[in-house]
């Protein structure tokens, strides 16, 4: 089971690059594709899902070019697009039956699989209610259920937690973690905590280009000794913002607790702290943008 993205580019009308010379090799595990809005995540997802074709480069699934022979991948593909909606008048069972029929699942096997998946996504009790009455999180769970109907080897979920409340987000992240096994899961998100919770690998993308691809531990190791925290008077906050890449700040009774990413200590009393993936994400995105947040930035 091997997915290879080889120098893939996508050029849109108006000569806008959606992806540029993007390469990646994937084996079973959960890859979190993180990047800001407009970074090219959905473009890559649609190419991997065989919905669109790259302008240049190629993607192979177990050695087969998916643009030329998409059916081989489609048979083992589960896909949950961004902003996924549903047919409001159908209930979960009817919707999943329709999707299963389109995927070519035989009737009896489909019914068994649907019942099993409704338990997995915790919607069995609500299965007869019209989907129009479902919450955003419930709809996303129906979406993941349809993606899992054919027990896919490659599962692609595009921004699945966008618009969900914190409780639903946690529930959905846990569900994705549970699903990771002997399959490749690609999770696209601009919320780093989603990646932190579920990913075995992280790829940072911006401007259609791959900035970094590594295991979370290695990304964190790259930032060892570059994340600092100290307390400043609130009057100095603006000046610090101009000079450093601020990861977070919190006002407390003793002043503003500032956390920055910087090659050198930003102040004599600044303490080096353990980096998080949020710090790493900011570090790589800022590096690519050339705006490091200050003279001591990367």
């Amino acid at each position, binding site marked *: 089971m091997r997915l290879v993205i080889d120098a893939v580019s996508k050029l849109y009308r108006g000569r806008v690059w959606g992806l540029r010379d993007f390469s990646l090799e994937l084996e079973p595990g959960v890859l979190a594709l993180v990047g800001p809005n407009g970074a090219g995540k959905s473009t890559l997802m*649609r190419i991997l899902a065989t919905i669109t074709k790259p302008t240049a480069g190629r993607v192979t699934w177990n050695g087969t070019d998916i643009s030329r022979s998409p059916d081989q991948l*489609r048979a083992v593909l589960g896909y949950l697009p961004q*902003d*996924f909606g549903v047919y409001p008048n*159908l209930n979960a069972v009817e919707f999943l039956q*329709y*999707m299963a029929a*389109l995927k070519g699942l035989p009737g009896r096997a489909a019914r068994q699989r649907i019942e099993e998946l409704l338990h997995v996504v915790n919607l069995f009790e609500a299965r007869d209610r019209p989907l129009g009455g479902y919450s955003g999180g419930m709809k996303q769970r129906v979406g993941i259920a349809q993606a899992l109907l054919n027990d896919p080897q490659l599962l692609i979920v595009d921004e699945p937690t966008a618009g969900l409340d914190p409780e639903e987000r946690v529930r959905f992240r846990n569900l994705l973690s549970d699903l990771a096994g002997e399959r490749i899961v690609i999770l696209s998100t601009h919320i780093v905590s989603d990646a932190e919770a579920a990913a075995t690998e992280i790829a940072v993308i911006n401007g259609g280009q791959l900035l970094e691809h590594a295991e979370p531990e290695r990304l964190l190791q790259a930032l060892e000794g570059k994340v600092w925290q100290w307390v400043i008077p609130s009057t100095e906050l603006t000046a610090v913002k101009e000079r450093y890449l601020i990861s977070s700040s919190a006002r407390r009774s003793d002043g503003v607790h500032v956390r920055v990413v910087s090659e050198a200590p930003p102040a004599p009393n600044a303490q080096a702290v353990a980096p998080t993936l949020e710090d790493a994400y900011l570090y790589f995105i800022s590096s690519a943008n050339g705006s490091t947040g200050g003279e001591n930035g990367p």
Partner: protein
Amino acid sequence: MRKMILVLRHELLTTIRRPSFLLVAFGIPLLAILVLLGVTILKGGSSGSGGIAPEASETSELEVQGYVDQAGLISVIPQDIPQGYLLAYPNEDHAQQALQAGEIAAYFVIFEDYIETGNLHYIRPNPSPFSAHVQDSAMRWTLLVNVLGGNAELAQRVIDPVNLQVTDLTPEPQNGASGDHECSKPGMTCESNLLIRYLPTIMLVLFYIFILTGSSLLLRSISGEKESSVIEILMLSLSPLQILSGKIMGLGIAALLQMAAWVGTVYIVLRTGGQTLNLPAGFQIPPSLLAWGLVFFLLGYALYASLMAGAGAMVPKLKETTQATWVVMMPIMIGYLAGLFLVEEPHGVIATVLSLFPLTSPILMIMRLTVGGVPLWQPLLAAGLLALTAIIVVRTVARMFHAQNLLSGQSFSAKRFYTALLQRA
């Protein structure tokens, strides 16, 4: 093919289960039938003032009436008036007593100078607003027969002096619903009945609504799936042509159901409500008109639904569908507005040309066929041209139905739509 049928089935079932569809397709016709039923009940099923012998079907609904013959004219009650429907009273006092006792619904007073003046007096208790007309056909027929010495055959000839047979040397026209045989009914002309007079306009409006609502279903379906990203999932299992054809056929059947319900209602109303609506006896919509209606609806739907599908592929959000509807439906809207004026001159040059032009023929040819007198070659040519255009448009739109358009978030514009359409043609 199997997957296309799955799409068809899904579209049909989800559409016909929608409350809004049920309301429009079946609720409105049901309401129309209920209104007709209500009016019929309130009117007491009485006949109009045709001045002819009551039909057998009407006699069962005749009210028992009395008369006071001061002229001494009535010596015989015609045989086709059921016994006991017209009761003679020697004077008004007796008739008044019978009326108050409920033995008769009303009574006539035939004045002494009736032969010179034709004066008759009709007395009835508290008429309702819905039964303000006088049920006088039995009395009129009785008077006529008696004035002619009791000769009912002669009276019938006086009412209908001509048994006209027409030989038309031009090719046989398509009979319209208000054809000559309807207008020649005794005591009734086409102009005398508003419903028949406006039937061509009613058909124009109905077919405009059928095609507009049917093809709008397709636009909403595609733009809804596009907005909800379901289209992306469908594209993994289905080809664009499978999606397009499945939707066109599924929603076409739904639209056909709506049309059947509406046309069926019109049919039922005309068949059963003839008396209430004051229609000539024996009036009916010719089967040939129904057949042509089906042909022009299906072809018109295929044409406009395909155009709507093309627009739907380019509309990023459901709320932008209104603009797309206007852009796509503009030709048939123009045809519809023109038809409202052209109904007075249905066989003029403009009406004929527009009824042959494929973008307007689905409604204007039906209007002309309802009027009647359209040579057979014209609906045949119009249907042929429409079918050819529909095939070209379906194929063109299928080529527009690809990921670049379906995934685009660009706003809809008429220029972009027509450019894409012409590029793919």
